[in-house]
């Protein structure tokens, strides 16, 4: 199952199990692997595998619903699942982008500055600076720099998704999580997003649940195959896709099921 460990990983997941209380389904069973810093880790597998649950556990977005959790998740060596953790700071350090682009009902500018304003940042100069740098990092600056005051909902789907990425980047997170971020996007927008991710990994730790296995093969440095709540195999991307060690992984990668 777990073939190696990474020295000094950004995130270490230790025997994590998650169960949703309102319908009793066990979403994750004994998940155990590392997420290295400054790399793209892809969580892939068929629907229902627990990928979204895992992502939401990493920034404790799961707190919004009734879950019971056992195990631990270490971010820079500190367990984030205890009651002494400040979830607000955690969510700024570990940002998430969802499958559907969700522009907030504000202007483009206000969307990006929203996170900073939540944190109490009021200085106009600092906000403008963050707006520009995060829009550049998300490869959206040139397209919107002249209409920052327009409602965000006027953007196209691909632009909205890049807006959501910029929105998260404005908070200077350490980890960037993306849950099927290019599902609704056309190939050109998808290529733009994938290109920005390759650049972003230099400064951030990226965890992505890719929209297709081809996307995983294209961009993943490390990959974890998740099937029905269990971690089947985890390895360096190129090794896992070219020479999977587990039969189930091989079957999925070659398309025998899915």
């Amino acid at each position, binding site marked *: 199952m777990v073939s190696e460990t990474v020295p000094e990983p950004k995130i270490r997941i230790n025997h994590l199990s998650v169960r949703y209380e309102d319908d009793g389904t066990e979403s994750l069973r004994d998940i155990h692997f590392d997420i290295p810093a400054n790399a793209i880790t892809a969580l892939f597998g068929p629907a229902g595998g627990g990928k979204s649950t895992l992502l939401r556990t990493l920034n404790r977005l799961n707190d919004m619903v009734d879950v019971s959790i056992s195990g631990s998740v270490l971010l820079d060596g500190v367990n984030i699942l205890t009651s002494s953790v400040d979830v*607000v700071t*955690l969510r700024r350090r570990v940002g998430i982008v969802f499958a559907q682009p969700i522009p907030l009902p504000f202007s483009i500018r206000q969307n990006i500055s*929203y996170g900073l304003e*939540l944190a109490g940042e009021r200085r106009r100069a600092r906000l403008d600076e963050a707006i520009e740098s995060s829009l550049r990092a998300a490869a959206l600056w040139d397209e919107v720099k002249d209409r920052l005051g327009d409602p*965000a*909902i006027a953007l196209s789907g691909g632009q909205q998704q890049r807006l*959501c990425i910029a929105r998260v980047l404005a908070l200077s997170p350490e980890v960037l999580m993306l849950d099927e971020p290019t599902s609704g996007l056309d190939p050109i927008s998808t290529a733009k997003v994938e290109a920005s991710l390759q650049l972003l990994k230099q400064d951030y730790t990226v965890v992505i649940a890719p929209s297709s296995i081809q996307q995983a093969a294209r961009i993943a440095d490390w990959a974890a195959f998740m099937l029905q709540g269990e971690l089947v195999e985890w390895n360096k991307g190129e090794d896992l896709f070219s020479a999977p060690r587990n039969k189930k992984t091989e079957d999925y990668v070659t398309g025998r099921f899915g």
Partner: protein
Amino acid sequence: MHLSRYQTERIAFMAIGVAALLTVAPIIIVVGAIFVSGADAISWEFLVEMPRNGMRAGGIWPAIVGTAYLALGTGLISVPLGLGAAIYLSEYAHDTAWTRAIRLAIVNLAGIPSVVYGLFGLGLFVLFLKLGSSIVAACLTLSIMTLPVIISTAEEALRAVPQSFRVVSIGMGGTRWQTIRRIVLPQALPGILTGVILGLERAAGETAPILFTGAAFFLPRLPGSVFDQTMALPYHLFVISTQVPGMPVQIQYGTAAVLLTFVLAMNILAASVRSWQRRKRQW
């Protein structure tokens, strides 16, 4: 005699159309009749002067002012309380037995006859709390009566805001209150406003709850404090149309027309808020 499906449809549609017409036509006739007959009496003096000759002449200014006071007072009490309850139900409460009890209570408050509210107001506010027949007692009574309307419409408006906004805000480190204050409340505001307008409209038009709690007919002056009684338009109309001999029909129609104008104005206001929201909505 066997009718084809299409014949049945034609008959049914005709019958329904006639029924709808018979239902709707009287509304137009009623409203029109009051305005037409009351137009004669309405003048600037009628609206801003004090009444004379035992209410048989002069203006209805104190009744208008009184109704405004009652509406204002009711709003000041029921809106914060109702909005708070709506926020609790929409944003904080889980589905427990207690929450269901709250919802049941709201449904019940909405169904209680207005005269029973008047009785309750008399028992609790006027007598037990010794507030006397006063604006304060009347407003408290009206507030409890208006509460269910405000809670229901406000909760619906809050729930209509997409859940995805909340998830995004929390995901970026926002607290629940920050999310409510910055996103949910502003987006729900038009819907909440509509509910408040309609709730206050009803409160201002009710007679039975204020009969024993604060309304009076022959008041020589405008009320000086919240512990005074007050005149009010609906109560005024009631008395002048049933209990004052020799009351000119003019004045009765005029008073009715003023009350109706107020109601219509509120309806138009609420409708404008609704259509403004439909246009400006960003989701």
